[in-house]
C-alpha cells in the first residue's frame, strides 16, 4: 500500500528533466548559435565615441600660424533610443521649433535608427554650455566634440583651401570617412589631407538605460587614442601675401611670387578673393553658394586655373630659344617696320637685348619666323611643322603647355596651351599652314595661352639663368617635419646660360634704361629685371608683368596679371610687381604714395552683371 504508484516518480523525474533540457537547448540557441543578441546588446549598451584628432596646423615660412582649430560640438542622436522624449521641453532647451525638430529627426532616422548621426552640427562652446546640464534628460542624445578651422588673418584663402563635410563619393572612396566627417575640399587642405587629418581614435563607453555614460568598456581595453594631424610648414610669407592681396584690392587678376633658387612660392594672390573664415562652420553652405554665384568668380585660384594670352612677356622665351637654335645671334637686328605686325613708336632694335627692352613686335616676328621656318625643307608647308615641333619642345621645357606640378590639387590647375602640328593640321589641314598662319604666337598672342604660375616660373628661369624648380607651397610637413624632397629637383631648359644673361640684361633695361617699357617699376637700390606684356583679348587688354630681383643672385621672381586693365603692362602690372619686390626685399615699402595709388586704383573694366559679394562673418 505504501509504495503504490511508485513508478510515477519516474514520470515526475522525466517532467523535471524535460524542462531542464528545453532550457539548456534554448540557452544553447540563444548564447552559442545566435550572435544577433550580442550585436544588439553592444549596440544599446556600448557607445563608441570617435575621438576626432585635431587637424594639423598650417604655418608660413617664418613660423607664423596661418590656420588653427577651435572646438565645436555636434549633438548626436540615436533615434531608436529617444522613445518617450519630451519633445516640447527638448525644443525649448535647444531653442529650435517643432518643425525643425521633426525635420532633423526625419533626417537622422533616414540615416539609421540604430546608429548615431548628427542632429545639430557645430554648436559653439557657448551654446553648448547653455544646455550641457540638461542633456541627461534626453535619452538618445549625446555630444561629440569636433574642431573647426580658424584664420586670424583673412589671407591666402585660395592657397589654404577649405574644409567641408564629406560627400558620399568621398565616403565610398576612403573607409577613413564616415557621414559627417570633414575633409579638405580644395587648396592645401585637400592636397595634404592625409597629413592634416591625423588618425581617429575611439573610446568605447558603457551607457545605462537612461543613456548616461557609466564608465569605459573593459577599462578601455578596446580604446584607441586619436593622433593629431601633422602640421604644414608652408613656403608662404604671410606678410608679403597680405601685402600683395592688399595691392590687388578692387582688381581682377593675380600675383605669384616665387623664390627662384628654391621654387618656394612666397605669395599667391588671386583677386577677387574671399575671407577664408566665410567657409567655416554653419554659415559655410550659404556663403559658398553666394561666392559660387558671384560673376567675378572669387572661389577660383586664377594663378593656377586661368590661362591667358601671355602677351609680350612671351618674347623672353622666344629670344633665348632662337639664340639656342642659332637662328639669330645676340647682335641680330631687325627693322621695326610695323608692316606685318603693329608696334609702338621706337627706334629699330639692333640686338636681342634692345629688342627685349623695347618689346619690338616686328623684331620677334622675324625671330619666330626663323625658328618656325628653318629651311630644312623647301616647302614652307613642310618646313613650318618641323619648326613648330622644335619650338614646342623648347616651350614645354619652360613648363608651358602642361600642368604645373605644384602641390595643390591637380583639378584646380590648367595646363595652358602650346599648339602642336596636330592642332594646326586639324584646324587648317595638313600642309595648308605655315609661319604666316601662326605668327601671332611670336608676341604671345594667337593660340598660345599661359597660366600665371607659368609666367612667374618664366621669371624664375631667367633669374636662375636656365632652369627652374617646380613651384611649391610646403617645405616640411608632419610630426617629423619631412622635407618635401620631390620639389627640390632642377628642371633644365637646355639653353645656354649666356643667352639668359642677354635676356636678363634686356629685362634690366626694360626697367632702368630710357625707352624701356616699365620704367614705373624702377626702385632705387634694387635691380629689378622685368618684362611687360599687354595681352589683347575680348574687352580691354590684360596688363602683364614678370620680373625678378636683384639681377644677380635673385631672391624673388614675380608675375602680375591684371585683367582688362587699360594702360598696358607697364602701367598697372609693373608698378604693382615692384611694390611686391620692395616689400619682400626691404621688408617695408618706402614709396607710400605709389603704394596708396595702386591700392586704391580700380582699373579693371567692369564685368557685365557684377554682383558684389557681401562678406558675412560667421
Amino acid at each position: 500500500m505504501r509504495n503504490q504508484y511508485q513508478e510515477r516518480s519516474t514520470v515526475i523525474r522525466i517532467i523535471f528533466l524535460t524542462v531542464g533540457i528545453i532550457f539548456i537547448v534554448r540557452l544553447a540557441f540563444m548564447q552559442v548559435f545566435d550572435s544577433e543578441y550580442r550585436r544588439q546588446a553592444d549596440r544599446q549598451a556600448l557607445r563608441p565615441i570617435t575621438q576626432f584628432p585635431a587637424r594639423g596646423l598650417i604655418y608660413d615660412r617664418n613660423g607664423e600660424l596661418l590656420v588653427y582649430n577651435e572646438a565645436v560640438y555636434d549633438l548626436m542622436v540615436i533615434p531608436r533610443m529617444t522613445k518617450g522624449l519630451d519633445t516640447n521641453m527638448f525644443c525649448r532647451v535647444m531653442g529650435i521649433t517643432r518643425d525643425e525638430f521633426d525635420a532633423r529627426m526625419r533626417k537622422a532616422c533616414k540615416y539609421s535608427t540604430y546608429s548615431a548621426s548628427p542632429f545639430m552640427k557645430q554648436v559653439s562652446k557657448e551654446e553648448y554650455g547653455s544646455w550641457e546640464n540638461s542633456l541627461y534628460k534626453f535619452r538618445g542624445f549625446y555630444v561629440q566634440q569636433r574642431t573647426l578651422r580658424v584664420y586670424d588673418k583673412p589671407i591666402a584663402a585660395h592657397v589654404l583651401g577649405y574644409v567641408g563635410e564629406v560627400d558620399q563619393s568621398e565616403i565610398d572612396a576612403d573607409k577613413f570617412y564616415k557621414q559627417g566627417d570633414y575633409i579638405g575640399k580644395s587648396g592645401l587642405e585637400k592636397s595634404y589631407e592625409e597629413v592634416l587629418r591625423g588618425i581617429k581614435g575611439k573610446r568605447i563607453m558603457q551607457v545605462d538605460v537612461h543613456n548616461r555614460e557609466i564608465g569605459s568598456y573593459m577599462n578601455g581595453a578596446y580604446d584607441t587614442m586619436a593622433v593629431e594631424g601633422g602640421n604644414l610648414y608652408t613656403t608662404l610669407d604671410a606678410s608679403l601675401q597680405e601685402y600683395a592681396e592688399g595691392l590687388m584690392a578692387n582688381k581682377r587678376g593675380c600675383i605669384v611670387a616665387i623664390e627662384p633658387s628654391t621654387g618656394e612660392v612666397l605669395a599667391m594672390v588671386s583677386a577677387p578673393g574671399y575671407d577664408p573664415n566665410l567657409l567655416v562652420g554653419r554659415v559655410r553652405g550659404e556663403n559658398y553658394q553666394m561666392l559660387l554665384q558671384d560673376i567675378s568668380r572669387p572661389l577660383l585660384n586664377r594663378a593656377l586655373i586661368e590661362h591667358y594670352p601671355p602677351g609680350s612677356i612671351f618674347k623672353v622665351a622666344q629670344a633665348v630659344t632662337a639664340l639656342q637654335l642659332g637662328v639669330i645671334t645676340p647682335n641680330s637686328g631687325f627693322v621695326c617696320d610695323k608692316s606685318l605686325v603693329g608696334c609702338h613708336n621706337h627706334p629699330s632694335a639692333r640686338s636681342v637685348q634692345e629688342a627685349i627692352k623695347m618689346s619690338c613686335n616686328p623684331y620677334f616676328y622675324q625671330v619666330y619666323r626663323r625658328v618656325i621656318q628653318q629651311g630644312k625643307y623647301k616647302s614652307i608647308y613642310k618646313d613650318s611643322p618641323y619648326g613648330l615641333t622644335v619650338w614646342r619642345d623648347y616651350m614645354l621645357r619652360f613648363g608651358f603647355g602642361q600642368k604645373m606640378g605644384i602641390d595643390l590639387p591637380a583639378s584646380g590647375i590648367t595646363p595652358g596651351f602650346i599648339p602642336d602640328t596636330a592642332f594646326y593640321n586639324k584646324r587648317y589641314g595638313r600642309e595648308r599652314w605655315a609661319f604666316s598662319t601662326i605668327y601671332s604666337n611670336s608676341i604671345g598672342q594667337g593660340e598660345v595661352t599661359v597660366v600665371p604660375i607659368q609666367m612667374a616660373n618664366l621669371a624664375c628661369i631667367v633669374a636662375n639663368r636656365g632652369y627652374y624648380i617646380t613651384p611649391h607651397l610646403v617645405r616640411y610637413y608632419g610630426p617629423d617635419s619631412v622635407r618635401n624632397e620631390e620639389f627640390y629637383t632642377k628642371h633644365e631648359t637646355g639653353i645656354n646660360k649666356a643667352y639668359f644673361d642677354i635676356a636678363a640684361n634686356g629685362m634690366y633695361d626694360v626697367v632702368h634704361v630710357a625707352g624701356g617699357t616699365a620704367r614705373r617699376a624702377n626702385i632705387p637700390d634694387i635691380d629689378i629685371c622685368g618684362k611687360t606684356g599687354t595681352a589683347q583679348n575680348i574687352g580691354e587688354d590684360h596688363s602683364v608683368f614678370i620680373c625678378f630681383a636683384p639681377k644677380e643672385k635673385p631672391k624673388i621672381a614675380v608675375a602680375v596679371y591684371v585683367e582688362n586693365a587699360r594702360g598696358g603692362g607697364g602701367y598697372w602690372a609693373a608698378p604693382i610687381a615692384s611694390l611686391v619686390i620692395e616689400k619682400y626685399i626691404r621688408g617695408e615699402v618706402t614709396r607710400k604714395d605709389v603704394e596708396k595709388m595702386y591700392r586704391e586704383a580700380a582699373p579693371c573694366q567692369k564685368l557685365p552683371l557684377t554682383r558684389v559679394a557681401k562678406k558675412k562673418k560667421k
Partner: protein
Amino acid sequence: METKIDWVTLLLYAAILVFGWMNIYAACYDEAHTAILDLHTMHGKQLLWIGISVVIALIITHIDPHIFSSMSYLIYLVVIGLLVVVLFVGTVTKGGLSWIDFGSFKFQPSEFAKFATALALGKYMSSLDLDYRQLRTKLIAWGLILLPAGIIILQHDTGSALVFASFLLPLYREGMSPRILIVGLVAVVLFVVTLLLGKYKLILVGVLAAIALLYLFGWLNKRTRKHYIWVTAVFAACTLFIFSVDFAFEKVLQPHQRDRIYVLLGKTDEKTNSTTGYNVYQSKIAIGSGGVFGKGFLKGTITKADFVPEQETDFIFCTVGEEWGFVGSTLLILAYIGLLFRLVTLAERQYSKFSRIYGYSVASILFLHLFINIGMALGLLPVIGIPLPFFSYGGSSLMAFTILLFIFLRQDQERTNPI
C-alpha cells in the same frame, strides 16, 4: 533513529545560495558601494537574509520533526489568517497587494502559504482512513490548495497563485488520475494555438474533427457505442473550449496579462510596443549576449546598466546568462535539476506518507518556480513575476524556501522514526 542530514541537498542548497548572492551583487553592483555588508544595498540586505535563513535552518534541524506534522493545520490556519489580513492592511507593491510592512522591512505572507499548504495537504492526505476515490476527499484536498490560491489571486498576485498548481504533482504521485494532467496540458496547447490562429480558429476545429474521425473509423478496432459517445464528447468539449478562449482571454484576463501572452506569442513587437515586450527583449539580449563563457563576473553590460528591470528579483537569471554564459547557466540549471532529482529520491525513501507527500510538494513548488522564472527570462513563457528559489533577491521568499526545504530535510533525518 536520527540519521545525518542529507549532505547532497545541503551542498546544492549552499552552492545555489552563494552563486545567487554573487549574481545579486553583480546585478546591483555600483562602484561607489562595493562593501559586501552594507545594509543600504540589496546585496548587503540579502547577506542579512542569508544569515537569518541559516539560523532558521539550524533551528529547524534541531527541533522535533513531528511538531510539523502535528501543527500542520494550525500553521495552515495562521497563514490563511495572515493572507486575509493582507487583503485589508497590506501595501501595494508593483500592482500586487501582498505585503505587510514591518518598519523598514516588508513581509510577504503568500511566500509562506506554500509550505503551510504543503504541510496541511500532507497531513490530510496521510490520514489513516482516507479513501482518495471518494468525492469528499477530493473536494477537501482541492479546497486546501485552492483556498490560499484564491486569496492570493484576490491580492492580484496571480504568479504566486499559479504556483499552487504544483500540488498536482504530489497528488498525481499519490494516485490522482493522470487525466487531469493531460486535460490541463491539452487545454494549454489549445489555448495557445487558438490565440495564434486568431480568426482562423476554425482550422483547428477542422483538424480536431479529422483526428476524431480518423480515430473512430481508422485506428479503432472495437467500435462500441460508448466509444462514439466519448470521442464526440471530447470533440465537443474541445470545440467549446476553443470558442470560449477569446471570451476568457478578453473578459477574464487583465490587460497586462493579455499583453504578456501576446508578447510571448509574438503578436506584438517586442522592442517597442509595450513595457512587457521591452523587458523580455532586454532579458533575451542580456542572456543571449553572454555567449559560451559569459562576459565575466561584474562585466555584464546590459544587466549592469539597468536595461533589464527587476533584475535582482524576477529577472536575476539574466545576470547569470550574461556574466556566466552558456556554461554558467547550464551548470545552474543542472544544479536545480539535480536538487529536484535528489528531493524525489529522498521523498521516495520516506517511511511516512506525510513526509513523502511533503517532499513531493517541496520538489514541485521549487520546480514550478524554476520553470516559470527561467522560462520567462528565456522568453518561453509569459512574464509572471515569481522568484527563482534561493537565488532571487528577497527576504520573504528566501526564508520561506529555506523553511520549506529544511522541514523536509529534518523529516528525512528522522525517516526511520515515522509518526
